[in-house]
């Protein structure tokens, strides 16, 4: 099958690769760009292990054609670390035992990252609803929810002084 020239930005860097038009974004990320953080769990959009951020939205990259990502801005788990290593969210997952086998974790954190951009201070109910597209078989979600809620408080506390400065 003839290949197409795919150009997009991944984790802030311009990348290009050849791929078949039918290739799924998750396969291009994992196998052509060697970004194996996002995983494949179901191939039917149910489990969310393959969640990445595309043009400011959480998408399940197992049901997105790579061709649909032409020119897109994509962020994967590999692009979420802060300048000093783990981000607040990543640290919160560790601190509150929000992961066990780790397979759902990259998709889970990538989704939580977008959720907190959409809703910086969610309630527990909003977190549970907003994360319902990502399945976890190990944790029962309780500590994932806890981690996200703690991270949101911490991130807001860090954000506030900047808001004040801007207002002044």
């Amino acid at each position, binding site marked *: 099958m003839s290949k197409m020239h795919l150009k997009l930005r991944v984790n802030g860097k311009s990348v290009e690769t050849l791929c078949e038009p039918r290739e799924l974004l998750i396969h291009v990320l994992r196998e052509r760009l060697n970004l194996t953080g996002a995983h494949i769990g*179901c191939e039917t959009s149910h489990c969310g292990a393959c969640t990445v951020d595309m043009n400011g939205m959480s998408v399940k990259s197992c049901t997105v054609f790579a061709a649909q990502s032409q020119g897109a801005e994509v962020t994967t788990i590999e692009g979420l670390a802060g300048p000093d290593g783990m981000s607040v969210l990543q640290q919160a997952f*560790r601190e509150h035992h929000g992961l066990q086998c780790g*397979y759902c974790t990259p998709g889970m954190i990538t989704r939580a990252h977008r959720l907190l951009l959409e809703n910086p201070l969610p309630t527990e109910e909003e977190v549970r609803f907003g994360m*319902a597209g990502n399945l976890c078989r190990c944790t*029962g979600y309780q500590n994932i929810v806890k981690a996200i809620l703690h991270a949101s408080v911490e991130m807001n506390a860090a954000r506030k002084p900047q808001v004040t400065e801007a207002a002044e």
Partner: protein
Amino acid sequence: MNDLSHDQRVAGLKGLGSSRKRVEDARFTQGKGNYVDDIKMPDMLFGDFVRSQYAHARIKSVNTAAALALPGVIAVLQAADLAPLGLHWMPTLAGDKQMVLADGKVLFQGQEIAFVIAEDRYICADAIELIEVEYEELPVVVDPFKAMLPGAPVLREDLAGQTKGAHGARIHHNHIFRWEVGDKDGTEAVVASADVVAEEMIYYHRTHPCPLETCGCVASMDKINGKLTLWGTFQAPHVVRTVASLLSGIPESSIRVVSPDIGGGFGNKVGVYPGYVCSIVASIVTGRPVKWVEDRMDNLMTTAFARDYWMQGKIAATKEGKITGLWCHVTADHGAFDACADPTKFPAGFFSICTGSYDIPVAYVGVDGVYTNKAPGGVSYRCSFRVTEAAYFIERMIEVLAIKLGMDSAELRRINFIRKDQFPYHSALGWEYDSGDYHTAWDKALAAVGYDALRAEQTQRVADFKAGKTRSLMGIGLSFFTEIVGAGPVKNCDILGMGMFDSCEIRIHPTGSALARLGTISQGQGHATTFAQILATEIGISADLITIEEGDTDTAPYGLGTYGSRSTPVAGAATAMAGRKIRAKAQMIAAYLLEVHDNDLEWDVDRFVVKGVPERFKTMKELAYAAYNQAIPGLEPGLEAVSYYDPPNMTYPFGAYICVMDIDADTGVADIRSFYALDDCGTRINPMIIEGQVHGGATEAFAIAMGQEIAYDEMGNCMTGSLMDFFLPTSWETPHYTTDHTETPSPHHPIGAKGVGESPNVGGVPAFSNAVHDAFRPFGLKQSHMPHDHWRIWRIANQLGLHG
């Protein structure tokens, strides 16, 4: 270090009992785990299966010409290609054999017919589409009772005329085994003459462990040095190496099996699957690495289901409620091949723990294993071997008996519990329960949930319902379970002849850090964190300075792997014992350096101190260095130890779970209001991880009880082959859990730990199911089979006439 207080030194170890944060998490949270599908090798090929569309059919022909003509397709393997190697069938862990690729016929939908090897997974999928299989349909049997009728279709033609199987006589052409334990005549006599007998058929439906990562492997045969490397999602890598050697004839020394990071197992990854065998053969044939990874549909339809037990029970009691006997017969649906992963001598696993937490004087269990046109498996889905089935059975029978007696089932449990002073307790079915304090746990649990107030609320709710003031019912689900885990003593527990010991090998480095390797393999349990904690307390080196390695058969000592909550009871014990060997040698070194007799020293957190002279001591760090730089008469240099631990007994964790739910009688929607879980897993290694295990296991229990199933239609079509139909709860419907504990150490385990990972699944399922039953008890419900999805709950209400 000398300035630190005793307590500060203990805290610095991050040893037993500390909620140490996990060392695994830095890589997992940053997308740097290394799972099987992440492995990429030069020239690697991809393999995948042509699978049967039918549940029972003869294979007339397989036309591969078009597929082989497709650019990028390397080969297509069929049974005839494997037959010269003797690999078209393989032995199962249960003493049966299983087709690797269809040999003349198929016996379940999704069965492997041919293995396509191609340059990548897309070409592989294209080639599979191009392969034409011609079938001749045969009559299908999906009901184990119908399978045992005289005129039932013959499923396993390969067993024609065989009246004896791996576990004794076969009484029918679709019969696998009959396994009996206990006193049949004595039990039946008690049942015949009892004041009260409750009888019920309890069905524990077929389901699937469904870890988020499916099964897969990468096989790489290096033809230059003759070495085969196999990376895979293996819960028991050493056993896989042994099986691979026995099947292929390659010496074990030339096979390296590696379990990298595993994305959950829950029993699904214990067995050996056709994909592994075909990948190995394909790599040997092509001389290139071959990857095989299941998709979700393959996983749900073909690899290792769980449960599917029809349990006929009779429980006898006095009119005061004292249980006098328990009788049980199980019809066990094993599917097309008996591929259960149980210890060899236990074809129904440890189902005979079904007397539960109760002092029952006489009991009998008979289990008949039966072939049907369903996928093979019968693994333990987050439980020790068939323990979940046993716990569900007895916890339902208790409820059924309570109905018959008109008693409160909390009280019925209490008056029948094994008392604390009866431990070690010998059960009527032959187990020796190591330790327990059930009454204390039960009272704590009932008090914690405010049991009496809940019952009063429920009584009011029923009155309101009957008065037409509400359409909501309330159920209180009680469950008290005793597990049997930590298989097991080599004298009666083996898998394929391998005794079920486990192992730990420790090296202390000269500068006082350490490496420990074990025969187990973590799939999310956090072994790298917790085993370092066990060792830290034993040898006085901070857990942060101890690296744990598992899963590489070239480096780790032989062990039987991780399933059945056996890692802590068995490998955890080996770790403690190896640590004690290290400490014993360190003591001799300390005695030499301090110029005292060994017996003049005592251990203090992280050092040996001369008794009565606290200022004279040597720390483990100093002793580690001395082990490598001192010439000590009569003592070899170095500081290493290995322990192969053969447990003297199983361990018996227990717990009390209580679920409160509100049920809408008109829609069948059940809302879990609260779930309380008290666990007693003996000595607690890491409370944070224990709590996480309970949350996760309880969520699996919630799924199983409330909607998750592998269902077939009459034609043998699997109706639940994707996550569209197979229920995995999301964060939205998963309840909030309250955890609690008591601590009754195991008397025979070196640190008193019992294991916990599977308790919440074992205890959780009856708690959820009993809550549903309890809600309808006032309206006459005795038994309704799981899973209790909305439709089935609605149907209960409808059949009880609650819809007016």
